[in-house]
């Protein structure tokens, strides 16, 4: 009986998620371009990956992207959430404005950002020139700045989402803790450090995990803002995989790099499970 309820969803899930995952591991051991017959190559794809300059640059960029964009996003969104939670009026208006970027079409907003980042005419560089900068950054078209542009965009894009997660966490902190701290003469900073952040520990940890996973998966902003360029200067794992599979038709090689990405994300998820056991239980 239960099966009839689960089967419709489970069938699709099996066909479009489970089977593909298994198939991806198999594909990572072959060389295949769709047109010619598949050849089994064992672990050769992985050996090639770790000698492939473009892959190593993408891997390094993914790590740099994650360790910079995640703290930036979380600190800013936590700061905003704490301020919004301090009993102000009009919270819905502020919350909506900050959340808007997160639900806007990435194709649309990135085209706007490309114009905003425009080296010669964009508003950012016009402003910098007004402020007296002589050599303005080349943003998306300069090797040293392209990844920075992606980080700025993604931080801007993600803040609203994590702000909502933090706001939900803040609501569940009992208000009597703050009341007794006020009686003891604590100032707002002491309350933040001694009550808010410890009580929000599980939420912060959870947001950290989700944000890191999303950072390793980043694809659209890179594809649409810089196409990984100039050169490979802003290529990340997600873009590397996409390009090897759907531009170069190297499905086996691309699958091998996807397996590397999967391993990284599984490691993060595993850490989450280990730590979260102490804090949260999904099933009660």
């Amino acid at each position, binding site marked *: *009986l*239960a099966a009839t*309820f*689960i089967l*419709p*969803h489970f069938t*699709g*899930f099996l066909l*479009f*998620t489970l*089977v*593909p*995952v298994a*198939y*991806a591991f198999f*594909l990572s051991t072959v060389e295949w371009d*769709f047109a010619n017959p598949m050849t089994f190559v064992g672990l050769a794809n992985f050996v090639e990956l770790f000698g492939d300059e473009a892959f190593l640059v993408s891997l390094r960029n993914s790590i740099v992207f994650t360790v910079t964009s995640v703290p930036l996003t979380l600190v800013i969104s936590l700061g905003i959430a704490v*301020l*919004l939670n301090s009993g*102000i009026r009009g919270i819905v208006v*502020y919350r*909506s*404005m*900050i*959340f*808007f*970027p997160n*639900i*806007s*079409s*990435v*194709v*649309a*907003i990135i*085209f*706007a950002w490309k*114009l*905003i980042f425009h080296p010669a005419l964009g508003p950012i560089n*016009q402003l910098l020139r007004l402020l007296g900068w002589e050599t303005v950054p080349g943003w998306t078209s300069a090797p040293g700045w392209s990844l920075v542009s992606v980080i700025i965009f993604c931080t*801007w894009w993600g*803040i*609203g989402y994590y702000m*909502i*997660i933090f*706001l939900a966490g803040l609501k569940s902190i009992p208000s009597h803790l703050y009341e007794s701290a006020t009686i003891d003469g604590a100032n707002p900073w002491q309350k933040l450090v001694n009550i808010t952040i410890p009580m929000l520990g599980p939420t912060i940890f959870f947001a950290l995990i989700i944000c890191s*996973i999303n950072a390793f*998966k980043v694809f*659209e902003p890179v594809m649409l803002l810089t196409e990984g360029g100039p050169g490979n200067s802003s290529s990340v794992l*997600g873009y590397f*995989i*996409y390009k090897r*599979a759907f531009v170069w038709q190297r499905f086996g090689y*691309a*699958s091998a790099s*996807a397996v590397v990405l999967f391993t990284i*994300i*599984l490691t993060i*998820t595993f850490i989450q499970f280990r730590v979260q056991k102490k804090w949260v239980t*999904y*099933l009660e």
Partner: protein
Amino acid sequence: MKIMDTDYTMTAHAGTRRASKAILVAARRFALYLFLSCISLAIISPLIWMFSASLKTSLAVFDFLQIIPKEVQWVNYVKIWGRTNLAVNFANSIKLTLIITVGQVLLSSFAAYAFAKIRFPRRDLLFIFYISTLSVPFHVIMIPQFIVLKSVALHPHLAIVLILAFNPLGVFLFRQFFMNIPDDLLDSARIDGLSEYRIYRAIVLPLSRPAILALGIFAVIAVWNDFIVALLYIYRDEHKTIQLGMRSFFSLLKGPEYNLAMAVAVCSVIPVLVLFVLMQKYLVEGIAMTGLKG
């Protein structure tokens, strides 16, 4: 007399101290509102810039001090429709969004009912397994999916529906919600001889409006904004969704017609923003409940 004197000065001191404290509190409040307004405006400014540019002449687009256009060009919003297949792109997106949203809500609520309300062996183990696949990145499964779906040569829209309709997140969200529906209610219905299907249909679903709306908004936003799945499966202009159609529009600009590009961008963003403004309560609750998104 002496005592009275000190008494008087003390109360006076307390009075001024209270007054200055009140001023300090008010100043702090004001600074807080000012700061939050600046931050919100800074965050939303690229969207304001986009809207402002869409109403300018193409020459004025990069005049960034001109936030309110000198000559408002509403005609930009008329011009864009003659260019590419934007109307068809919108229709395709609306069609896919409706089908996939309804599909996700029905399929996941159905499965979640069993996970929450019917006892069967290894139920919770299967559920944990289900949820653990949420962390599988799309980049891992997209290549096998592509190979399989290409080899059976499905219509691109059907391929997109199949890929997006089975969302484990929906099962998770509905299960969490159904767990709060008291078992007694269902048990008494069972005693009255209602089948599980009737209970699901007549009791559980009507109670689940907030969950249906939350998943519904998640799905609408995810499908409307989907770029990568459409990118992989759609080649022909007449099949393109708004995201791909918009991309072709951008690549076919004749010269610096960035005002028209921004008009298209605004049109693609407006439906989702309106929906969000109307239904944000459910969306926010949904995010808080799942902590995850599509």
